[in-house]
């Protein structure tokens, strides 16, 4: 004890009573611990205990009481004393009590620091999630000629997926599903610019390959962080059923014909956007007949895992509509998400899960 005091490990501030003690606490912000008698003039130790938290809630108090004075000791502990020592003071016991108290304070401090960091992180994540949700369309076209519905289930700490509906000249509609690499605020920012650039590029432009080329070009400028976005863009003409598309490294959509036959959209060459400038994207087109459905999705669907570590994969997506082809866009989207959730069965979700359904009206309704 004397050694620690002499070596300067501990520094003492003295006060004659509770009121003085509070004044000293206010004055010396770095005080960790209060060692206090119970009987003192003007303000006793038990009252002091009640007052300390309002000055500094992180200070720990140890009270000194008469041997066997259980009533006061109990009261002190109830008022938040960390420990007590009894008179006559055994200096070894006091040394151990002080050391232990200071150690606890140390741990408490680092726990507080971790908590503060975590709070910042959590705030950042929740902000990123809100940004992500806020850019998603919430109303969808629903007419006799065609319907669209989409939904995105965000993973807890990954924010990367988005989808969008773009008005294209000639009464057509652009359907996009995208997945930004990474997570948190940087991913959310990149997502915002991807979406804005996509919307901008789609003005006065109706070739999906040219739109992707423009978005890629702009994303590549000043992209030091090597962020990228995979993006599928299809443009649907409700008049003719023509679906023209280009793909920037995204999972190819699945087509369910009116009779229930599934197939993958024939692939087109493409690389995720934001990596290489001057890429020329291929374009392809199919015709959706009345009753045909296109399901656009992100890898969060096909790569959803169950507790055994198996992935959902395309086959299970096909199975969702094995008994009956999709009847309407909203139900189909819900069915896919339900099937993924049932498959995962509580296993952690590593990635955002996005599904967008386009169904041409008519046919077997």
């Amino acid at each position: 004890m004397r050694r620690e005091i002499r070596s300067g490990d501990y520094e003492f501030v003295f006060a004659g009573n509770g009121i003085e003690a509070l004044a000293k606490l206010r004055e010396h912000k770095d005080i960790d611990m209060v060692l206090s008698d119970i009987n003192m003039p003007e303000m006793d130790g038990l009252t002091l205990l009640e007052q300390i938290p309002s000055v500094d809630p992180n200070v720990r108090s140890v009270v000194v009481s008469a041997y066997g004075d259980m009533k006061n000791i109990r009261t002190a502990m109830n008022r938040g004393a960390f420990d007590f020592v009894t008179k006559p003071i055994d200096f070894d016991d006091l040394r151990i009590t002080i050391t232990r108290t200071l150690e606890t304070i140390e741990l408490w401090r680092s726990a507080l620091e971790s908590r503060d960091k975590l709070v910042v992180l959590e705030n950042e994540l929740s902000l990123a999630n809100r940004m992500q949700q806020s850019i998603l369309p919430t109303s969808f076209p629903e007419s006799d000629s065609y319907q669209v519905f989409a939904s995105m289930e965000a993973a807890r700490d990954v924010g990367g997926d988005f989808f969008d509906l773009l008005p294209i000249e000639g009464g057509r509609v652009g359907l996009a599903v995208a997945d930004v690499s990474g997570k948190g605020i940087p991913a959310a920012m990149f997502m915002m610019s991807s979406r804005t650039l996509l919307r901008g590029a789609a003005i006065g432009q109706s070739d999906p390959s040219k739109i992707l080329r423009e978005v890629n070009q702009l994303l590549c400028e000043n992209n030091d962080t090597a962020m990228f976005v995979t993006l599928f863009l299809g443009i649907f003409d409700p008049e003719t059923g023509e679906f023209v598309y280009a793909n920037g490294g995204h999972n190819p959509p699945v087509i369910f014909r009116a009779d229930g036959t599934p197939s993958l959209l024939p692939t087109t060459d493409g690389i995720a956007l934001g990596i290489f400038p001057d890429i020329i994207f291929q374009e392809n087109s199919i015709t959706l007949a009345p009753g045909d459905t296109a399901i656009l999705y992100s890898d969060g669907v096909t790569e959803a895992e169950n507790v055994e570590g198996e992935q959902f994969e395309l086959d299970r997506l096909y199975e969702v509509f094995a008994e009956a082809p999709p009847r309407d866009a909203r139900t189909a989207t819900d069915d896919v998400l339900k099937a993924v959730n049932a498959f995962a069965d509580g296993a952690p979700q590593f990635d955002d899960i996005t599904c967008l359904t386009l169904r041409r009206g008519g046919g077997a309704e």
Partner: protein
Amino acid sequence: MVNVTTERIDGVLSADVEGRIDGSNVVQFEEAVRTAIEDSDRAVIMDFEKLVYISSAGLRAILLTAKSLQNRDAKLLLCSLSDRIREVFEISGFDKILPIHATKADALDSLNN
């Protein structure tokens, strides 16, 4: 969980990547790779035989590694991809950016020819 085991073969860093690379451990993966790479390495071969999953955050880490190597005329090669991992690289178009080899021996051969 991701484990990176490295050895140096004739000025080439070989890194066996085991487990999964996703948002939860991508920082750990980047750190492991960055600290293993030395300026004298003329190439890095990542062996993905035991890699079971890679998210887009993981792809970005690979891309960053490739770019930083490229800045000093070194190369990043990949080898031994499972079908599942290969598919991820094919869909995203990353197979067009990075050389992918069937085996580590093939990857080494390509460097020596």
